[in-house]
């Protein structure tokens, strides 16, 4: 598998993970270890930046694992920029998953505020990974604004509904000059494999692992699915048949040579 490069970092794993909803910080750490993930999101609202040894952060101290702080909870670009600066200072990373979702119920991202914040944060030297709708034009605008990658959603966060935005993800992947990470809605290993087969550069999975009966085993299942999907993509998938008709094996234009 080709390594994935985002900004100045190289990843051999294309599975990114989240840390919410787990039954304990110990299980969180075990699942992440099993997933092989090298980039893990942590919500700034959950960690205690003032505490010398925040329990979740302590559990995430493992070799090769990078933290990706997220701004979940902010509602405007101004709030996101303020929070990002504090996070950079406290956690010692300029990487940021930019989440601006004023919609308190479905946590859907605000495209206007996200674009505004991306412009500002990129200028300030942040490696910005914005969480956004699967909107191809917005993705291009974010790329222009300096986003290090784009993170379009597959379906509403936590819904486990899979790639409901498939048609738009295809266009985003086709057009993007920065890595495309499918985030939100991936509910089963097959969804992750499908995203990778479409050509996504990585996927981010949280609920499907955390809410599984056995999160550690599920983390491994996702690891395998992401690897299989990516390997399939790199091997060159045959075009999918669009109808019910069989594909003829003898050439349809052979008659031309006998004319």
């Amino acid at each position: 598998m080709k390594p994935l490069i985002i900004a100045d970092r190289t990843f051999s794993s294309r599975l990114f993970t989240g840390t919410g909803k787990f039954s304990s910080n110990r299980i969180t750490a075990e699942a992440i270890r099993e997933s092989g993930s090298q980039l893990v999101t942590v919500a700034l609202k959950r960690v205690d930046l003032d505490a010398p040894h925040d329990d979740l952060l302590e559990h995430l101290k493992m070799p090769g694992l990078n933290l990706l702080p997220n701004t979940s909870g902010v509602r405007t670009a101004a709030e996101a920029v303020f929070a990002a600066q504090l996070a950079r200072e406290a956690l010692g990373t300029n990487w940021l998953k930019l989440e601006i979702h004023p919609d308190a119920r479905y946590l859907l991202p605000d495209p206007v505020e996200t674009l505004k914040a991306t412009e500002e944060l990129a200028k300030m030297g942040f490696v910005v990974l914005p969480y956004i709708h699967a909107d191809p034009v917005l993705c291009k605008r974010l790329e222009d604004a300096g986003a290090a990658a784009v993170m379009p959603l597959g379906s509403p966060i936590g819904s486990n509904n899979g790639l409901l935005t498939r048609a738009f993800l295809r266009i985003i992947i086709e057009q993007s000059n920065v890595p495309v990470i499918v985030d939100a809605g991936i509910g089963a290993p097959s969804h992750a494999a499908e995203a990778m087969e479409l050509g996504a550069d990585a996927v981010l999975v949280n609920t499907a692992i955390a809410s599984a009966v056995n999160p550690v085993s599920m983390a491994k299942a996702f690891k395998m699915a992401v690897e299989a999907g990516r390997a399939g993509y790199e091997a060159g998938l045959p075009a999918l048949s669009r109808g019910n008709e069989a594909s003829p094996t003898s050439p349809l234009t052979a008659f031309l040579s006998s004319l």
Partner: protein
Amino acid sequence: MSFYNLYSAYNWDEVAACIQTKTEADVRVAIAKDKPGLEDFMALVSPAADALLEEMARKSYALTRQKFGKVMQLYIPLYLSNFCENRCVYCGFSNSNRLRRKVLLLDELEQEVSIIRQQPFKHILLVTGEAPVKAGTDYFIAVINQLKSSFSQISLEVQPLSTTEYELLVKQGLYGVYVYQETYNERRYSNYHPAGRKADFRYRLETPDRLGAAGVRKIGIGNLIGLEEWRTEAWFTALHLHYLRKKYWRSKYSISFPRLRPFTGEGFQPNYETTERNLTQLICAYRIFDHEVDLSLSTRERPMYRDNVMSLGITAMSAGSKTGPGGYSNGEALEQFAVNDNRSADMVADVIRCKGYEPVWKDWSMFLQMA
């Protein structure tokens, strides 16, 4: 247009009668739907649903785990004052009760905080009676500023305030406000609230509108169970939530279900008994109706009930609570109501872990709202 306009379009007795007509078949339809509506909610709180409580519990459990995960939020109330100008007939703080009145001075507040800080709480709920002269907006600002360094999430359960006052408090770091209608039966409201500003049904009912307009991040609503028939109260609470969700979509919502119990001796007795089985039905009904709403369970309920019902839809619990000003540092009985779960926060957290959930003490950072 406020919620009062929508509320006025409904008649309490008609809603109550309609709930009674719901059948088991209606309940099955409501449980099966992805997004039950207000008509379905009537079925979910109807007497007919009692026979399907297990099915409701299963759905409520599954929805809660998917949306919230295997976690339980914990918070602690801090009573700042028991002064009150109201005469609510059910309340220990009523102006007509002979009780030593106290509002915490800022150094007394520090004593309370020093004890609470020995526990892992990061979410604190500040509670007062309703006496703006003794504990008004200026006082709340001073308290919030003193508590900022110790807590990451500060909420209020105090007298209703104006939109401007709420805006001011949000700027200081206020996160959420809980204000309960007590009863949605306007005709009967004055029987329970004969005096003080709380006697104004409409002003109280429109408080969540002011909270939404002021940009308060979490709005808590609910009714006091035991005043009026619980099924109809629940439906009006659901109507309120439904209205608020569409109008103030930036806010999160929480429902609480404080329950009055009959007791021996003098004092207010609930007019309608609501059993633990009824309360369980109510919790499941709210969850099936709204998958994202926070459902909060206080220490009014006894340990055995709390431990068993927590996984069926509950997302937040208080623990180790004292319900009077100065309760943590001097233990004087100036309380609003009797606590039925006297276990320490650590003990409750251990039970939560045993049930397979992570106790979450911190779920907000004040700097996220400080731009």
